């Protein structure tokens, strides 16, 4: 149960992943803050989801940093899987029912407004988590 290996886990490209997550968290939090303050009544559902997405990005960023602990590793999985589901479901809904979901948010139109980073990032995040299990869980 040595922690030397696990502490070295947040190295390499994983750190870039965390920073991209942090930037996305900042961007989506800022945007949903403005949306809710300025025009919440235009699309309450879409903007609530926008805020939820922002919260999940913050959680995912935190969980990735702490992913070497087993509890947080699970949180990271759940948060990132939730994000992937969110971007696919809301992305599809924004095309099918633009009245309800066709408003700017990280997830609408599969994250087009963010260069599709919201679509690609969770896939990358899940891959990273798979290849970086906490010591002692699966080994």
């Amino acid at each position, binding site marked *: 149960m040595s922690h030397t290996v696990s502490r070295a886990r947040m*190295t*390499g*490209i994983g*750190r*870039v992943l965390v*920073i*991209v997550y*942090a*930037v996305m968290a*900042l*961007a989506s939090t*800022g*945007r949903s*803050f*403005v949306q809710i*303050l*300025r025009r919440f009544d235009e699309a309450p559902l879409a903007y609530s989801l926008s805020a939820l997405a922002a919260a999940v990005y913050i959680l995912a960023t935190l969980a990735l940093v702490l992913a070497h602990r087993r509890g947080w590793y699970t949180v990271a999985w759940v948060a990132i899987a939730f994000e992937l589901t969110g971007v696919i479901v809301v992305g599809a809904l924004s095309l099918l029912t633009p009245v309800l979901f066709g408003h700017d948010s990280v997830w609408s139109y599969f994250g087009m407004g963010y*260069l599709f980073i919201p679509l690609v990032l969770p896939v990358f995040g899940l891959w990273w988590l798979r290849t970086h299990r906490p010591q002692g869980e699966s080994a």
Partner: protein
Amino acid sequence: MILWFTITQIAVACAAGLFCIVAGLAGRRPSDWTVGSLLLVELLLIAQVIVAIIAPLAGNPPTGDLLEFWVYLVSAVLLPIGGTAWALLDRTRWSTVILGVIGLSLAIMLWRMQAIWTLQVA
């Protein structure tokens, strides 16, 4: 905002971003050059803050939402500070890549700020 100043800044941010990503992928640790390139972008951002305060008073008001603009600008000003702190704490090649990612994010955010200022109708 002032269009030519924003375009210059976007060009600098893109150049700094690409430079840091290439340097990082080539295995360089954060250096005076890579950190310095991001600090140059930061200086321009601080200039942009001053411009954003003075411009509305000097007959150049934004057409878009000023609140949304400031959320972007404040976030943008904070990003290089965070990235540089990270680079000083963690002196590996990946920190250089991170500086680059931040540079490119800033370019996108600046573009968005210009759009809010001139194109968006609040």
